[in-house]
């Protein structure tokens, strides 16, 4: 088995370790805990009074805006990481640097535009 697959198999196995840990602890707890459920216990908590209206409401649109921004910058980060890893070993260092500056610069301009438009204003 190659080293590469070994590592990824390991990661997969540790997902199972996490789930096993969770299962084992819940299992032990289940053996120890009492189970006497009443209607009041199963009710939704809303500060001691009956919950009013539907809990499932739309959240404000700004979460969507921030999520979009996040995706944009996260993809940026995904590009920067490989670049950062190899930038020192490429012969024409300045060209590599300038290229990335252009890339980041576009994003910074976008961020400034978004800020100017008031999209980063939470309220």
């Amino acid at each position: 088995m190659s080293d590469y697959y070994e590592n990824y198999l390991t990661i997969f196995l540790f997902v199972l370790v996490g789930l096993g840990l969770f299962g084992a602890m819940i299992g032990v707890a289940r053996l120890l805990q009492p189970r006497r459920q009443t209607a009041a216990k199963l009710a939704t908590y809303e500060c001691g009074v009956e919950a009013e209206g539907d809990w499932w409401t739309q959240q404000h649109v700004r979460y969507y805006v921030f999520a979009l921004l996040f995706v944009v910058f996260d993809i940026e980060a995904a590009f920067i990481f490989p670049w950062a890893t190899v930038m020192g070993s490429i012969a024409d260092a300045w060209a590599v640097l300038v290229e990335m500056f252009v890339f980041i610069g576009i994003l910074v301009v976008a961020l400034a535009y978004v800020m100017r438009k008031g999209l980063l204003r939470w309220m």
Partner: protein
Amino acid sequence: MAGITSAEVSAQARVAAHMADVGVAVELETPEMTLNIGPQHPSTHGVFRLVARVEGEKIEDVEPVIGYMHRGYEKLCEVRTYPQITTLVNRIDWLSGYANEIPFILAAERLMGIEAPPRVQYIRTILTEMARIATFLAFLGVYGIEIGAITPIFHAFRDRERVLDLIESVTGGRFHPNFNRVGGLLDDLPAGFLAETAVAMDAVKRVCDDLEDLILGNDIFRERTVGVGVIPLERGLACGVSGANIRASGCTVDIRRDEPYLAYPELDFDVVTDTRGDCFARAWCRLQETREAVRIIEGACKALPAGPFMAKVPKVIQVPPGEVYQRAEGPLGEMGFYLVSRGGRIPYRVKIRTPSFSNVSILPWLLEGTYMADLIAIVGSLYFILGDVDR
């Protein structure tokens, strides 16, 4: 649509499109949600409930629901004798029990025409101010928690405990002293009280400095409170908001100075005011008033006259017919008793004017149109005690 031409429709559409373009973030419709905050909530100071209709994070309107702690004190006062009533009024604002007794006892003394001896006046002043310090230190700590700072409360409560110990050493009770009698006090000060007071007051002064650094001087705290929940002076007065809440809005009223009672006219202190009227100003005023209270106590201890701790009063307290409104500057604001007597040992009617009741009644107005994130900061800064609201 009958009366609207198609040109007008398209003009409206253009405007709408433009609005959508310039203000995407401003408001897209989100459905309303009703949120109950309280009665079982970590920051409602007892059983208090706010029914908030929120749209997104904006509060459309909020309705405080009170009465969970209504104990019918006004009715109970009508079947109790005067000395028994101090037990009740102690429990109105439980953080400053001693300060509650003062206006009631003063009202009874006023109707009876009894003047308590000077020493009594000084001791009452000292204990009232100690109750004020205890209440304000609790506020400064708890408000820190509400804003999210978990450390200041322990420092505040550590030195609050010293003050409570002092109150206990005199009265035997930390929260409900029941120490006042019509015409005087139950007992004199214990030995060594003045020396211990001096030590405790130094500690309080130190902790005030600490709290100023930890809370009021903190940038995040300022960000959260400055300009938030502004009470305009006129509105506040019309709603009967009193105490540090209204002094933070630029009102210079202080009953201790304007309508002197106890030993206040002979003591030196400043009335703390601010003009900003926001949450920060309210907290700041309370911190400064704590310092002023220390000053009053130190002055009163220095000037404490000798003499009896009880005036000559009849064995059975009988109050002649009359009506009087006696108010006092409680830690939370104007605490007053409208006392109606028709003679005899039992009052005919006692209207208890509590500061928190009026202070809370401004909440629906104050919270309208604010944001959920500011709600706790605003509610906390008004600083009400539920016993004081519900009586």
